[in-house]
């Protein structure tokens, strides 16, 4: 009787209550915030993408037509050709950029050549410029009036050739950063062991260096491939009649006013980028067990011939990179290309200030600042809740998935999704349409993945004990967050802020459908100026962007240096290193 009573009535429930304490209100707050983060991500990422799917199976009047739009699209030879053009160019760019960047990174990490710090900075400069700058600069170098036109042997720079060289320039720093990180992670002990065993240099390269950098190389290749496939600015400016998917979307939406066809091309563009993204994702998943905590950084020893060769190579690459940037700056300061090359500020004064275009530069600064500030707060806050609070494993898995999706979504696809989603009359967030806020949102979402990974990495390196100790001392999690976590992670937080700022300054694909008169952006202004054939003012605007981004990077470097000495002293294992 007694046993039956305990078995049937509230026994198990009561037992459950004993084991699982009621959630404290602070934990509830943390979970509520977590759910809010998840909902926001889902709304601002999946909503727009869903609208693209919907539009792609509708006709202009909104009636369901199934895959008719796709059949239509694939039935047009010119548009079909774009798919092959896009993939072909992206493969060539990847095939050239990766060895170039790898050799550069190899020189920086495995040689004892002089000037490494300078080379590193110069190697990363292209990241400060909108991709359009490269295209404009290469037209000035290799166009019909270009100084180096004879080098091309009669092949016009407009078209596949121009897209390839401009994309190599634009993607080089992205590949360099990833490969550099991979090479820096190498374990110096392996090289010492190999050397003491008398392994020859070439064999060491193929048995230690390459396998060690394998994941980095794949990751870099996928990033370069995706960037080239998704970039709209370069083919738009230098592509001539060579059609690629990103420009096709623009032509469908802007030229033919066909949003449904634009959605169809978007989905086709999404496909190769998603494939690259999944490949990269799976490779990264396998990477973990590779590094040992006892790894020792590799220290390069002097080898005059090798160091000399690497120095020459890096000098050459650095000069080429600077020549691209330099030509754009030069173009912005001459009177009338190519007939009057006297110095003039008129592209800045007459072209930008009098024309009222300069406003877009200040809009960009404003947008980049707000993006960096609010984006960093949201991304880091969300990552904190994800990593340092407990409960709701399902929601956490969903956030991880949502945070990794943006990397696989080309900016134009996201931008088109935003216009379709937010201009829908039934959308309560309709008021955002045509505001700076929507540009900030699109930009934060577009660059979410990298920032999120930076935040997660920084948080993971923090001991979980902080949270357990705080909990046992009854210190609310938000206090731990702002007393411990944020100060300790400040370098990573600033890094995210800088990343968002620089990208917000140069992004064009995510915002080209979204800007309004009050929120015209600098990179879009370059596009419009180039479209109108105003090369001088376009180059001037590109120069301003580079100056702004470079200033922020310098500021970041200074602040980080001060911070590292003042607040991060505990990170240094021992003095004298």
């Amino acid at each position: 009787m007694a046993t039956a009573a305990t078995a049937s009535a509230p026994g198990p429930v009561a037992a459950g209550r004993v084991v699982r304490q009621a959630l404290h209100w602070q934990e509830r707050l943390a979970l509520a915030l977590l759910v809010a983060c998840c909902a926001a991500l889902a709304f601002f990422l999946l909503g727009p993408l869903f609208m693209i799917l919907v539009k792609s199976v509708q006709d202009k009047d909104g009636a369901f037509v199934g895959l008719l739009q796709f059949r239509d699209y694939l039935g047009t030879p010119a548009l079909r050709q774009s798919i092959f053009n896009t993939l072909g160019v992206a493969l060539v760019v990847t095939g050239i950029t990766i060895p170039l960047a790898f050799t550069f990174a190899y020189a920086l990490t495995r040689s004892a050549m002089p000037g490494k710090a300078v080379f590193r900075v110069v190697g990363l400069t292209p990241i400060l410029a909108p991709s359009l700058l490269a295209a404009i600069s290469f037209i000035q170098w290799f166009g019909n009036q270009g100084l180096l036109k004879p080098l091309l042997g009669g092949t016009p720079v407009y078209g596949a050739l121009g897209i390839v060289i401009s994309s190599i320039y634009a993607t080089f720093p992205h590949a360099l950063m990833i490969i550099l990180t991979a090479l820096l992670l190498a374990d110096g002990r392996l090289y010492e062991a190999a050397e003491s065993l008398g392994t020859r240099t070439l064999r060491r390269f193929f048995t230690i260096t390459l396998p060690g950098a394998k994941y980095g190389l794949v990751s870099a290749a996928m990033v370069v491939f995706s960037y080239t496939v998704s970039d709209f600015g370069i083919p738009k400016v230098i592509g001539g009649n060579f059609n690629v998917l990103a420009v096709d979307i623009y032509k469908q939406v802007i030229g033919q006013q066909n949003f449904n066809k634009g959605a169809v091309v978007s989905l086709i563009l999404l496909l190769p980028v998603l494939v690259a993204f999944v490949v990269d994702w799976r490779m990264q998943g396998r990477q973990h067990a590779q590094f040992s905590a006892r790894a020792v950084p590799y220290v390069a020893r002097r080898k005059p011939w090798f160091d000399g060769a690497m120095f020459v190579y890096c000098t050459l690459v650095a000069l080429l990179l600077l020549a691209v940037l330099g030509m754009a700056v030069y173009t912005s300061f001459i009177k009338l290309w190519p007939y009057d090359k006297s110095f003039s500020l008129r592209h800045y004064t007459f072209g930008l200030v009098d024309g009222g275009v300069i406003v877009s530069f200040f809009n960009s600064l404003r947008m980049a600042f707000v993006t960096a500030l609010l984006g960093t707060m949201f991304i880091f806050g969300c990552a904190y809740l994800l990593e340092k609070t407990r409960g709701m494993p399902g929601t956490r898995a969903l956030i991880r998935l949502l945070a990794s999706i943006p990397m696989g979504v080309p900016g134009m696809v996201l931008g088109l999704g935003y216009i379709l989603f937010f201009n829908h009359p039934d959308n309560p967030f309709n008021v955002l349409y045509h505001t700076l806020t929507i540009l900030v949102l699109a930009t934060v979402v577009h660059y979410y993945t990298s920032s999120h990974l930076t935040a997660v990495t920084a948080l993971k390196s923090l001991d979980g004990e902080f949270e357990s100790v705080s909990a046992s001392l009854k210190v609310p999690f938000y206090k731990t967050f702002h007393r411990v976590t944020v100060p300790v992670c400040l370098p990573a937080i600033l890094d995210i802020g800088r990343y968002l700022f620089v990208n917000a300054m140069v992004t064009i694909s995510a915002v080209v459908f979204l800007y309004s008169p009050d929120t015209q952006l600098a990179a879009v202004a370059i596009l419009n100026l180039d479209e109108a054939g105003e090369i001088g003012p376009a180059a001037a605007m590109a120069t301003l962007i580079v100056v702004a981004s470079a200033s922020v990077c310098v500021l970041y470097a200074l602040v980080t240096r001060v911070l590292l000495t003042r607040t991060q002293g505990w990170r240094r294992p021992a003095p004298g290193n």
Partner: protein
Amino acid sequence: MTQFRGTWWHSVASAVAAAGLLASGAAFAQKTELLVYTALETDQLKAYQEGFNKTNPDIAIKWVRDSTGVVTAKLLAEKANPQADVVMGVAASSLVLLDLEGMLQPYAPANLGAISAQYKDAKNPPAWFGMDVWGAAICFNTVEAQKQGLPKPGSWKDLQKPVYKGKITMPHPASSGTGFFDVTAWLQMWGEADGWKYMDGLHENIAQYTHSGSKPCRQAGAGEFPIGISFEYRANTTKASGAPVDVVFPVEGLGWDLEALAIMKGTKKLEAAKKLADWASSRDAMELYAKNFAIVAVPGIAKPLPNVPADYEKRLVKNDFGWSAKNRDRILTEWNKRYNAKAEPK
């Protein structure tokens, strides 16, 4: 460290507040605000706005400026939820398209009677009316021509000559209003069969189809491609900037369109919109248009412009905007089928 910890939280808080202020933007004074979509040049906008505000100081114009193709695309995209109150300085062929979609609010502006019949919608009240005419012109770089031994073309048919192979650029009709009126002019002037045949021939010589109507002339001015099919306003400004170009008006006839104005249906600021329409049709406004364009919608106001022939208006082809709008999709599809797949010039 302690000192630092105490201040950083505050600085973040004040930075957030600053960001909020920045994002919301400065507050506007108590004025009726009209959202006007336009494809006019920026330097023209300033003059027109000042002119309008002389008589209507209580209405503030907020411009959305972009190329004809972009503005039209935006308006169509927003069909379900229109943002603009007025469309001003956008191609009449685009406005006819919007009218066919039932998006325009017919209105007879104050000075409608003075506007030439061919430069306004035939309905009464009209859905749109013209401000000025913008028409085709060719920019021809004389320095490069001499270097490369190119004769000066005088007609559209001249441009088919093999000597010009790879030397000509023209605007893409899907992106550019200028490109579209070139194509519709050839089709209307010579009939469909001959029109397409002409474009087949011209296509052989085209180096690039640009996205804007201005760029071919700018490229000609920079010697990048010596011949640019463009429009007369851009040809004039390019020449004025010191570029070595001659402006050519082909003898067969010139494609053209109107910079026109229409009120959007459903606008909540109909009264203010009507005031802008009244002003835009007025003599004062027409005098401002005449500073940039050789033909304005009210006859007898325009003065001759340098580099534009006196009989310019007579050289315009007969242009049926209704036909252009109704056939826009078909023409662009056919054009894309024929020329978009163009292989790289060898």
